[in-house]
């Protein structure tokens, strides 16, 4: 993976997460939650836009944030599969958001000191927003996990379902590893111990059991290999731009 590929990965994680969270708009369990999820989606979209713009500049082929968001095909998206999974029930959405936001907060925190100044500037803003995302999803996971028998059962099922997809966040990539050693960017594969400590604390408070690392690990496959869920998501996200090329608000 190149430097551009790395930036696209961060951007696409945020973009696809934003699109999924946006699907809750007008469908969340309560009004406050509807607003919360839309706000979190907006934060993710903001980060995605800034990073897509940067990726386009790094690439040097004149592609804008819109070109990258609307005119790439499925296999060109570099998001992790975790963010493209269907929303499922509310517990699945909260498990996804907890695992993603803890990862993003760590990544952004450490990116502030890394050599890539553009990522550092985006991260310095985004880390403060991520803290709210972590807080929000943690509260829900604890509330549902340590709630009724039914909510506990469904929260545990959600954690079990999503967990295998978390491993991809920390996959080792030789180019990213080298960029990380050189201090240019943060190598996500170094983040797992800190991520695990933070996630474990929430799961313990929620009386939930963390699935063992040896169980149900998805087959290793790089960013660019996707589940069937992404194609449907992109079809909806890109339909207007593809039907009316160059359409503007």
């Amino acid at each position, binding site marked *: 993976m190149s430097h551009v590929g790395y930036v696209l990965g961060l951007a696409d994680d945020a973009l696809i997460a934003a699109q999924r969270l946006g699907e809750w708009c007008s469908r969340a369990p309560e009004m406050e939650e509807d607003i919360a999820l839309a706000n979190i989606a907006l934060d993710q*979209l903001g980060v995605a836009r800034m990073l897509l713009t940067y990726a386009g500049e790094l690439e040097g082929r004149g592609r804008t944030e819109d070109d990258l968001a609307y005119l790439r095909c499925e296999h060109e998206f570099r998001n992790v599969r975790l963010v493209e999974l269907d929303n499922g029930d509310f517990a699945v959405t909260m498990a996804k958001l907890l695992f993603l936001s803890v990862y993003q907060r760590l990544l952004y925190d450490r990116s502030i000191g890394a050599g890539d100044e553009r990522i550092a*500037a985006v991260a310095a803003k985004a880390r403060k927003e991520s803290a709210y995302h972590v807080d929000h999803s943690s509260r829900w996971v604890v509330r549902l996990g340590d709630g009724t028998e039914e909510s506990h059962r469904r929260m545990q099922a959600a954690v079990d379902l999503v967990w295998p997809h978390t491993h991809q966040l920390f996959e080792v990539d030789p180019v990213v590893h080298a960029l990380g050693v050189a201090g240019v960017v943060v190598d996500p594969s170094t983040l797992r111990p800190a991520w695990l400590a933070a996630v474990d604390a929430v799961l313990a408070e929620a009386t939930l059991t963390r699935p063992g690392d040896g169980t149900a690990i998805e087959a290793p496959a790089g960013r660019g290999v996707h589940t069937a869920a992404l194609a449907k998501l992109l079809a909806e996200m890109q339909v207007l731009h593809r039907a009316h090329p160059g359409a503007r608000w």
Partner: protein
Amino acid sequence: MTLFDVVAAVKDPELRVLNVAELGILRDVTVDGDAVTVTITPTYSGCPAMDLIRSDIESALHDAGVARVDVRTVLDPPWSTDMITAEGKAKLAAAGIAPPGPMPGSVFVPLSVRCPRCGSPATEQLSRFGSTACKSLWRCTACLEPFDAVKAL
């Protein structure tokens, strides 16, 4: 009225009582002949008001007779609610929106918010997310009024 004042007078579209200077998002106004460059910073990464603020600044300068306007966005240093001026915070409170307290530092601690209507500290948070990205929703348990509060960021 200087061109800086012209730009500074542009209102934030979501917190209408504040202008961009009071909100702390106006970084710089430089004049070079008939061209003016304005530098602003977003509040939140995804703040949807940025495009409107940009176009409002362009319109204000065009109305003031400036031919060429370039509005640039910078991220560094990141905006914080600590950048809202004291006057801005007073205007928020007067409009019934609880102003943000100081940033709690690296540790994330929810702070209590004083009711902007009756001043009571006996308030409770209804939702950590409010009508815009920068606000949360609260209720005063003394006067029973619900109110918006600008989140410390």
